[in-house]
């Protein structure tokens, strides 16, 4: 009997939620339209009424709904976060995804029946840290940062009773989530403080005769030659010069613009005992969510049916690559031999 892995898909809007559910998501995750979630982008997310409709739509079709309240509550605005937690409990979401220990404590006290998931922003990378959240707040699932190798994921799973969810597809954070202040260093706003990274309002494109430049709050992130495809200037994915090495030509010193894609190792992940695979991308369009959900649904079903006979089909890989940042993918840290 093979384990079942839950497919968790992003819903940045009601239409995205519907297509995710229609294309086979077991669960969707979403957020309120404010700074309480880590995709606080203009035009995204849900108000109370949309959330009510979204939850109903998902539940009627057997899908679960997780609410991301995964930023750190700002001092002086604590009630914005507790109001969101209260609303989540009232609306009947299946779990809240939290990062702030104070908010977890609040939920544990006020809404003991509410299921708690630890957000990737909670930076739990080892069983002892996970044990903290389980002991103190009764956290039932943890989303692992995208920095662990497969061996490390196995080590975590075999040493914690808490369910483990890993990222399967989407933009790749090379830094430990919840522990990266690069965005606020450059722009004043970060995932932890504002639910944003490299915010669009700080982006400026400059065209000159021979090149195109992207800047973030004035800092030059990248320069593109004519005809070269240009990506969003997430600051860790720019080209920079590192001093003190023989080669001082501009390079992706931190990370390439690329997407995470675990299609190639789904059987290993299944055997490792993960409970869920998460798709990144609440900022993406419904069309994107539909395509990624459809491909991952097919791949997961094939893998769960016959793990040893599973091979990722070329058309799945091609379809996901077309959607991937920089049109290329990587297994990221999960494929490393790191111990």
């Amino acid at each position, binding site marked *: 009997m093979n384990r079942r892995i839950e497919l968790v898909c992003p819903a940045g809007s009601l239409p995205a939620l519907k297509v995710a559910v229609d294309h086979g998501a077991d669960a969707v995750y979403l957020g309120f339209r404010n700074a309480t979630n880590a995709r606080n982008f203009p035009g995204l997310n849900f108000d109370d009424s949309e959330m009510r409709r979204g939850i109903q739509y998902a539940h009627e079709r057997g899908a679960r709904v997780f609410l991301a309240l995964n930023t750190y509550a700002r001092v002086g605005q604590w009630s914005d976060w507790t109001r969101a937690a209260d609303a989540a409990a009232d609306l009947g979401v299946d779990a809240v995804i939290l990062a702030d220990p104070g908010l977890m404590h609040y939920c544990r006290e006020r809404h003991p029946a509410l299921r708690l998931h630890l957000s990737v922003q909670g930076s739990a990378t080892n069983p*002892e840290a996970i044990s903290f959240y389980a002991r103190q707040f009764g956290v039932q699932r943890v989303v692992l940062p995208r920095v662990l190798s497969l061996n490390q994921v196995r080590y975590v799973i075999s040493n914690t009773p808490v369910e483990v969810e890993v990222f399967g597809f989407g933009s790749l954070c090379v830094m430990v989530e919840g*522990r990266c202040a690069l965005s606020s260093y450059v722009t004043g706003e970060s995932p932890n403080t504002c639910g944003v990274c490299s915010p669009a309002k700080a982006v400026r494109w400059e065209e000159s005769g021979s090149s195109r430049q992207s800047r973030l709050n004035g800092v030059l992130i990248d320069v593109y030659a004519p005809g070269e495809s240009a990506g969003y200037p997430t600051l860790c994915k720019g080209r920079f010069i590192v001093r003190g090495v023989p080669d001082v030509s501009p390079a992706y010193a931190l990370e390439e613009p690329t997407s995470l894609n675990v299609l190639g190792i789904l059987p290993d992940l299944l055997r490792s005992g993960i409970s869920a695979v998460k798709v990144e991308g609440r900022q993406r369009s419904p069309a994107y969510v539909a395509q990624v959900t459809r491909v991952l649904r097919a791949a997961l079903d094939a893998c769960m049916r016959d793990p040893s006979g599973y091979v990722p089909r070329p058309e799945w890989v091609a379809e996901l690559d077309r959607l991937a940042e920089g049109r290329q993918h990587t297994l990221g840290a999960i494929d490393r031999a790191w111990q």
Partner: protein
Amino acid sequence: MKLSLGPIQYFWDRDTVMQFYARIAVAPVDIVYLGEVVCAKRRALNATDWLDIAGRLAACGKEVVLSTLVLVEAASELSRMRHIVENGRYRVEANDMAAVNMLCGRERFVVGPHINIYNGETLRLFSDLGACRWVPPLELGREAVTELQAMRPKGMETEVFAFGRLPLAFSARCFTARAHGLPKDDCQFRCADYPDGMELETRDGLQFLALNGIQVQSGSTANLVRELPTLRAIEVDVLRLSPQSRGMETVIDWFRRAIDGRVDPDEAARALEASASTGPCNGYWHGVAGMDWLTEFDP
């Protein structure tokens, strides 16, 4: 107001570390944080070496705190952390929830800047768990720290990161090895060649960031000496200075004199600019981009 010396972020060789702390033993800092916080592979000093240094510093009247690793992934790292937690003599700074889990309910401990406490409710929770001092996340500025000071539980000291390159991010990837075209598993300890990190510049020459193994630091050196009047007014207990390879005693000295009122903070700021390895920044404290350097503000 006390002065502390944060843990060394870089990979210095054993002799350099020993000599550094021999000088620190007679420098006017009150608290010294010891131990490797960035990369578990760096083992130029073993546990006995660190405890020797701790003993010598304690004998000179310093409060010694043992700091723990920030990014913890392996069982071996957890077992080393447990040794630190169970040292039986010195207070411990927790930089990961794993350390908090080992410490809570048994010891009073310090919460380092990489534990995310952004509000008074979380601060109270950590106080209940046994924290006796906390270092606010680097992103938090005057406005937030002031509000949190008003909410802080009894017996909780506040320590603000006041000088040094800011440890902004941590990764599973080793950026130093990557810059040398080496895999992390065969890094050849290249980070030992960069005692203040590797400079990362933008293509138009801005000294933007510094690479220090798996850590990314600010290109500029944070400096809050000019903010001393505010820091004192809101009753911050400790200012943390982060070690750099050169001139650290001079840095300590200027801060000490500024705290004691023997020198004007503006004069100290000007002098410290000469002692810092890179240009200054104080943006986080003023609620703007961390890299900014504000010179016109209401102290």
